[in-house]
């Protein structure tokens, strides 16, 4: 094999692997992206039932109920719209009424959101950026601040 051929072999190999990697990334991007919506987005954009997405907002005060042995229900609000959520399992340590939450799951035909993952903010001073943005968008950012005790 000449020097040129060797180099061509490696360049072809490199490009081939790069092409495969790009192909894999594009393919995975098509089906495995999860969008983030606020309750207002869900209502306004009329998200189709069964779509997987992340719902973010504040946990409505007084909405938390135990509906089954290990199942709970609560409402996520951005202070203009509310979406009911059910979740089976242990809530994260920092989940609390009146504070920020991000739930991932699917919207049912009845408008009920079934979450399989619930993420809460990590500390007292912190609000998930998505939630803050959603609240700012709904024009309720300040109200959210004041609503905190």
């Amino acid at each position, binding site marked *: 094999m000449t020097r040129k051929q060797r180099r061509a072999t490696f360049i072809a190999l490199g490009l081939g692997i790069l092409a495969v990697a790009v192909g894999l990334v594009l393919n995975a991007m098509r089906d495995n992206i999860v969008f983030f919506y606020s309750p207002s987005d869900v209502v306004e954009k009329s998200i189709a039932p069964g779509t997987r997405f992340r719902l973010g907002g504040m946990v409505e005060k007084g909405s938390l109920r135990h509906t089954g042995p290990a199942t709970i229900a609560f409402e996520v609000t951005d202070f203009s719209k509310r979406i009911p959520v059910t979740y089976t399992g*242990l809530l994260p340590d920092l989940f609390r009424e009146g504070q920020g939450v991000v739930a991932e799951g699917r919207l049912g035909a009845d408008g009920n959101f079934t979450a399989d993952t619930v993420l809460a903010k990590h500390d007292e001073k912190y609000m998930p950026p998505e939630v803050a943005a959603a609240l700012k968008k709904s024009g309720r950012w300040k109200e959210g601040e004041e609503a905190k005790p």
Partner: protein
Amino acid sequence: MIDELGHFALVLAFGVSLVQMIVPMIGAHRRDAGLMAVARPAAIAQLALIATAFAVLVYAFVTSDFSLVLVAENSHTTKPLIYKIAGVWGNHEGSMVLWVLILSLYGALVALFGDNLPDGLRARVLAVQASIAVAFLAFILFTSNPFLRLDPAPFEGKGLNPLLQDPGLAFHPPFLYAGYVGLSMAFSFAIAALLEGRVDAGWARWVRPWTLLAWLALTIGIAMGSWWSYYTLGWGGYWFWDPVENASLMPWIVATALLHSAIVAEKRGALKSWTILLAIFAFSLSLVGTFLVRSGVLNSVHAFANDPSRGLVILCIVFFFVGGALALYGWRAPLLKAEGLFAPISREGALVLNNLLLSAAAFAVFIGTLYPLFLDAVGGPKITVGPPFFNLTFGPIMLPLLCLVPLGPFLAWKRADLFPALQRLYGAAAAAIVAALIVLAVKTHGPWLAALGMALAMWLVAGAFVELATRIGLFTNPVAVSLRRAARLPRAQWGMVLAHGGLGIVVAGIVGMTAWRQELVTALKPGESAELAGYTLTLEKVGMREGPNYEALVGVVHVSRDGRDLGYMLPEKRNFPVERQEKTEAAIRTNGVSDLYIVIGEDNGQGAFTIRAYENSFAPWIWAGAIIMAFGGIVSLTDRRYRVGAPVRARARLASAPAE
């Protein structure tokens, strides 16, 4: 007063770094030995000053000096001592000081032990290292001063995030930083080599131990972080493809590639400019990781800083170093002459393939991590890229790499024959098939693909063993001869065997967790039982326990299996009154092959407590394998060639045995 001393030391360190950045560089350019000689004392002074500042900070935390904003915000008198110390880096400002402390430590190590480096190279390396210190010290002093005063000082601090009050996490950042920042050495060597326009075997031999040190620290840091999330987040998961985790994984992947390509550069003089490019990328990804974690763009336990101006400053630093380094590379790299021709099928060829696949894997992780941020920054929709994305990209790229790992060491340098190499691996292949058959026979539930996964893991472990056995002639020589050969085997060889074998064990752990983990979510009243994977879990009672700075709800869970009494497990839910937060403490019982993992939740209002339990098959192997890999790195680091004080011998070896 003492706090001002710390601040002053940081300012002085900034000044010293400026000198260390400029003077030796000019000296190296003019070949002025006097100017170059400034580099070594400056590097040591820089370390001494930053260490002073850090020590002052530790002192302030230990003595609960709440006149410092940082201490008041992040500490509390009732906190155990270890978390007071860990609290130093459990916040943005303190963690940045730790970052520059480790940076200056690496610089000082080069200054102290760099006797066998050419003067010009050493001066340039230290100058580049100092330029990084200048950037980050300026960042600390102007945007994140840890020594800001609070007047009047409060009587009590606000405490540390309970999630961070954990032994696993207390030491995770120092290791991770030792890895992240350690890659700055490879970077500084790369830039210095580009400035000199010359890369020789000596250069590669110098870069390898630093990269190895950074790599093994990063391996330990990542393993600790993963272990921490496994037992504290209460989901029993070990890897979430969270952007912050990815931020540490990307430099690790590229550092792994760099370790392999540096071998070719050292032993064969080939792939020089590629090795330099990898060194630049490895540290660039460390910087990107620092940006991701420190800028507050991510929603994570690591994101302390919420001030957007800080993120912007770090982004500017990242652009400066990455852009500058790549521009320099584009300008100077053509000067590096390639040597050491090799055929596609050869040891070099295998290492090139390793590098290409690792780079592709890093690329996939990079896109998955940064694309959502990019989309958000340009005003697009908010999206998340979760585990499925990474499983579909990272997985298929790593798969061929894992299959080829045992083959590489059997290929000869320059030109190799595939068939004899494969022939030597018959034993490993047989072991892999046996492993698959055993899995199919024993594990009746779970996907059949798991058998292939376990075969792959066995292929890696057995392949590493066969490599070792061949080197020491285990089956062809008397045992005594083999043992003598084993003792004389270069440590780097042992390191490789351990690292590749450890990788196989990690793969087994991941496959086991993915295929056979069983989950149970239920609510139990005291006295009630539940079944999981053959275990009977009985919640006997629930009580309260007082900790040093928390109060815990403790579930007393009795565990038995087939009537055999296996004792009690005590999952806790801790409540930290100061921070007004809760923290889950999972109870984990391991038998070496699988973990029984129990988490308890609150009273659901009807007298029952939510219980989440998992049987995590092969979970302990993930961390055991990672530790073996890191240990392989340590063993390799003790190789005679890298040993400080043995430079003459190393040179002699190189001259007599160029192609090992």
